[in-house]
């Protein structure tokens, strides 16, 4: 059974239709790259999948693990294993990164009927996962994203993902703001989680992230629809030729 099936998805933002009948199917364990020009609807897809109310679903359906994803509240989607690494993570003053994550981990455990995590076990896990993405330990105690640089925010998103261990990780332009070393570290963090059970939707404008996180499938999203699907070589092709031809195809 497919992990994610998106059928004829239409999404409006502030009265404008951004997704215009998007179809996409992902199987368990796969990495799919969503590429496309700016304004094509990549971030809209990500936000709609995690339940941002500003993104109004007007038509279509999304099945996740066979369940109707669109019926679930954002927190239920998260507890069911859907994670979004934000393009622009918000700063949350006064909420410590670690305590917040512990609350999140426990919310997920409760959802699965598991007991709360042991404090020591949690701390060890957090430290180990932070090391994995080379996140400075001082950032664990700081308020979520507050005063973090652009790159630190992106690493923090991947760090959150590695702690929460989702089934479907959606990474929205995680490569922006990362220098080449950071890009490698973040990619290694993601690759370490590829175990055949977890799937990833990697949203990116450029091919450079996909040199490190090699996708199984590449989709081109232009003007609210998937206009082409192919293998990893499609990303290289896009890097060379750009999206001009696809713009015409979409029009």
């Amino acid at each position, binding site marked *: 059974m497919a992990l994610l099936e998106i059928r004829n998805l239409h999404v409006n933002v502030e009265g404008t239709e951004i997704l215009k009948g998007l179809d996409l199917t992902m199987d368990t364990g796969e990495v799919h790259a969503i590429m496309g020009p700016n304004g094509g609807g990549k971030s809209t897809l990500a936000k709609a999948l995690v339940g941002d109310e500003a993104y109004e679903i007007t038509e279509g359906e999304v099945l996740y693990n066979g369940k109707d994803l669109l019926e679930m509240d954002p927190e239920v989607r998260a507890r069911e294993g859907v994670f979004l690494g934000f393009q622009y993570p918000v700063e*949350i003053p006064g909420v410590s990164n670690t305590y*917040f994550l512990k609350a999140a981990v426990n*919310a997920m455990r409760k959802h699965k009927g598991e007991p709360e995590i042991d404090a020591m076990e949690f701390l060890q896990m957090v430290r180990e996962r932070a090391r994995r993405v080379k996140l400075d330990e001082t950032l664990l105690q700081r308020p979520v994203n507050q005063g973090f640089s652009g790159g630190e925010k992106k690493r923090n998103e991947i760090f959150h993902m590695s702690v929460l261990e989702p089934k479907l990780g959606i990474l929205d332009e995680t490569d922006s703001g990362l220098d080449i070393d950071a890009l490698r570290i973040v990619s290694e963090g993601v690759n370490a989680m590829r175990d055949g059970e977890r799937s990833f939707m990697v949203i990116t404008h450029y091919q450079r992230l996909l040199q490190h996180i090699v996708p199984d499938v590449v989709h081109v999203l232009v003007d609210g629809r998937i206009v082409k699907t192919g293998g990893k070589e499609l990303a290289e092709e896009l890097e060379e030729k750009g999206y001009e031809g696809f713009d015409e195809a979409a029009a």
Partner: protein
Amino acid sequence: MEAVAEAKSVYLTAFEQLGNTGPSWLRSLHERGIHAFEARGFPGPREEAWRKTNLRPVTSAEFPVADSQGVAPKALVERLGDLGDSYHLVFVDGRLAADLSDLSDLAKGLTVTPLSQYEDSAPERLQSALGNRVDIDWHPFAALNTAFFADGAYIHVARGAMIEKPIAVTHVITAEANGRAVYPRLVVEAEEGAEVRVVERFIGDDEASTLVCPVSELSAGDNTILDYSRLQEDGAAVMNIGTVNLVAKRNTSLRGAFVADGGRLGRVDLVADLEGEGGEIDCNGIYLTEDRQFVDFHTWFNHREGNCFSRQRFKGILQDRSETSFDGLVKVFEGAQKTDAVQENRNLILGKRALAHSNPRLEIFADDVKCTHGSTVGELDEQALFYLRTRGISAEGAKGMLTLAFAGEIVDMFKVDGVRSHVRGVLMRRLGVEDADIGEIL
């Protein structure tokens, strides 16, 4: 005008009927109080400092002095232990409840005495301290207190004495005081080089529609450390209109922590005077309102000498249709150079029909000073709420988390451990946050 005149005579008549008894020095103080009230009357709605406070429920009714028997219900007695280990003095409806108080093994240098125990032989320093600071000609409720208080607490810390255990003074208002008035009084004097922590608390029965008019006068001598917490957790129908006077002398550190939670109407006029070089007054407060509650904080910070430092950080969390007002003045007197003053008021609106007024003010008559003020009124950040939810936190949990984070900065500043954890508990209950993990944020 007629209504005001009538209200005045009601209080004067009550004063005469009550009979001004007690030691002579106290009698003359009571006289001064009633005369000040008679001359001043209740403030009119156009008076700037009282414009936001709706006094109609107070001025349109009569509130004879409570004459209940001083018996606190069990549920309220159980709350007395909430603040942890402390010396404690309990007043029920304005009168000492000796059986609920514990002043055993007072530390050396510490005197805690109910005012009702003093006769003509009261210490000179008490006689001069009592009523010395509060401006009864300006504040009619302080004048009423001065006319009618029957008891209260006098805390004196001798020169150089370091008092480790906090002193808790609790005012309990019972249903017996319904429709009546209670006048709590607190005087604290810390002599040079002393250190002391005082917690003043108001709790009460939700059935009591009582007018509570407290006056608290605290003065800290040179080089002292005085920490004062005021927890206003009144019963739902109480109208609590009080004054707090803080005086800091040379190189003194005076901290105030304020919580206003409960009551139908709450107002505090906090007057802080920096009277010696190097003095410091740092006051932080949280007010939590719900339903149709109204809370009003007026602060008057007077920098009378140079090189003094003051901080005010007050945060409001407003639910339902409640309304709050913060009106804060920092006044730098001529010659008070190198003044460093910060005043902040932040309000978080959780109820769609809640209303927060904020009016920070500066008056500066010196030219080498650093004074800043800031004021905000806002709602929870929708993006932050959504972000938390995408990590699995429930909508309610996310709201609680962000609200606790908003309040957390102030809670951390409460120096007395028992008070800090108590305030945390109050916040958690008020916000309906039960999840222990969310609580850890504070």
